[in-house]
């Protein structure tokens, strides 16, 4: 029993014992720094073509450490720019889905009764939808803007969070401090967003870590099919697509972006797993020895 431990210190002590999660966190930090700073250090520009160096393999001599693509653009800088877009989509779309999911779940759980069962019934119905295809439909019909990618992916990814948050809200709303707030005449809206939602943060953090890689995956899936990020912008999915088309003659155009994408997803998954072990109330028995 250690009732005095705060959420953050619980998470910290559990995570620091999880070597895989630690290593992932460090790898991910390195990745973010590389993606942000790499293009600044490199002598090449993202859209600078060089007709004398088409599809050159990686070499240290001319500064093309990842080689060049079929238009003679530096692959290192392009991979870093693609990473910026992929990570940005991952984070922004996850925030959108968290915003929707937490509000929806907290309201549903707190209000309860008929409202709750109708709201959860809607979630059940939406669960059975082939959502990725709806994202594709949205992209097809409304143009392929990056803004739409954020909204579309975020708008279809909130169901898990809503369910979990609702479950948590149901347990929290019976606590004394909620009764106290009610007795003090605090409005329902304020109780939900000032008293309940802050207590959900642990579970939300876990799902953020698990949702970010999913979102990055969806974005790269769309970009791979040519339905996502459009030239001159790029993302890891778009780069993998470009690389897959010429892997016979110049495999490095495929391998570098694929490696970055896979390592990022890998790290996020490990951190998410570690956080879930540390913070998910379902597994409380695991950490309080």
């Amino acid at each position, binding site marked *: 029993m250690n009732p005095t431990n705060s959420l953050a210190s619980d998470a910290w002590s559990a995570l620091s014992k999880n070597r*895989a999660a630690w290593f992932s966190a460090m790898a991910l930090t390195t990745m973010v720094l590389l993606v942000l700073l790499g293009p600044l250090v490199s002598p090449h520009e993202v859209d600078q073509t060089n007709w004398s160096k088409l599809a050159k393999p990686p070499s240290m001599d001319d500064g093309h450490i990842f080689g060049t693509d079929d238009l003679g653009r530096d692959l290192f800088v392009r991979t870093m720019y693609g990473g910026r877009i992929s990570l940005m989509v991952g984070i922004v779309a996850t925030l959108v889905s968290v915003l929707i999911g937490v509000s929806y779940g907290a309201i549903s759980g707190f209000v309860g009764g008929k409202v709750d069962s109708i709201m959860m019934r809607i979630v*059940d*119905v*939406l669960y*059975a*939808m*082939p959502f*990725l*295809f*709806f994202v*594709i*439909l*949205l*992209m*097809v*019909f*409304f*143009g392929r803007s990056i803004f739409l990618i954020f909204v579309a992916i975020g708008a279809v990814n909130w169901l898990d969070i809503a369910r979990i948050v609702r479950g948590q809200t149901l347990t929290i709303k019976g606590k004394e401090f909620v009764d106290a707030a009610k007795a003090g005449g605090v409005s329902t809206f304020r109780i939900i967003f000032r008293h309940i939602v802050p207590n959900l943060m642990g579970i939300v953090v876990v799902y953020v870590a698990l949702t970010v*890689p999913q979102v990055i*995956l969806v974005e*790269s*899936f769309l970009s*791979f*099919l*040519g*339905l996502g990020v459009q030239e001159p912008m790029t993302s890891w*999915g778009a780069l*993998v*697509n470009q*690389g*897959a088309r010429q*892997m*016979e003659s110049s*495999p490095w155009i*495929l391998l570098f972006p*694929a490696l970055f*994408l*896979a390592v990022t*997803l*890998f790290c996020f*998954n*490990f951190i998410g*797993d570690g956080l879930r072990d540390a913070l998910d109330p379902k597994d409380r028995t695991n950490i309080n020895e």
Partner: protein
Amino acid sequence: MTNLKFIFGRLAGAIPTLLVLICFAFFLVKSAPGGPFDFERSLPEEVEKNLREAYNLDDPLYLQLTKYVGSILTGDFGPSFQYRDYTVTELIMSGFPVSLRLGVAAIFLALILGGTIGTIAALNQNSRLDYSVMFFGMVGISIPNFVMAPLLVLIFSIALNILPAGGYANGAPLHMILPVVALALPQAAYIARLTRGSMIEVLNSNFVRTTRAQGLPLNTIIFKHVLKPTFLPVISYLGPATAAIITGSVVVEQIFGLPGLGRYFVQGALNRDYTLVMGVVIFYGLLIIGFNLIVDTVYGFIDPRIKHNR
């Protein structure tokens, strides 16, 4: 009796889901900017008028929707906008067998591979073998299909030159190996992790301890007592797994040039072929909803702890 009631209940629940799906697709397409007849060169007015009439585009919206729902219920998804000589139903029917072959093979491979690996890992819990299996499991989950597929081609077709890099060749087994593996691997990895976790839980449960205390041989314990409860969560994962395999098949078919449903979908999406895209989405939805229904029902029969008394 209760089981029958349960099945009907679930069927009744699936119908609104389907209707929402159809309406969603319908209104999405209707609210899309740009009509299907917006070509570079504008059509003569009479031609466009006739076309609009043929596709019911001048009716009020609710009438179009009811007509659409009605025709879908009779299995008619309308004519394709792009492939002028084919109906969407014909296109779906020509692509579906290819996708079905691919998907079924991938699910079986994922189940067998993932189940075996997960079991081995669980029986050697916390050993070096266990850790390495779980590590590679996470790697498998983290590498998306569309990265895995080109990598497999790079290794087995280009470097080793032992398997064909693409093409359907009327379903020749040799041509199906790489697509099936690319599609199955992430699911196999997930199933392995799921199996491992589930089996460890079962192995630690009281009834297994009892069988051990009774001195039953380890093989008997595992095959007669442990395997069934272990695979219950795996079976319930089959629903999401199918959805993931369907999604994955879209890219895998694209990469390997298989003439399946996924390719029609991507072509339709890139060409703004409204009826084809809607048809395929609804067809996919039907598949996923139907399969979830089957899994739920089967699950109820296998696991006696679940009582269908709702």
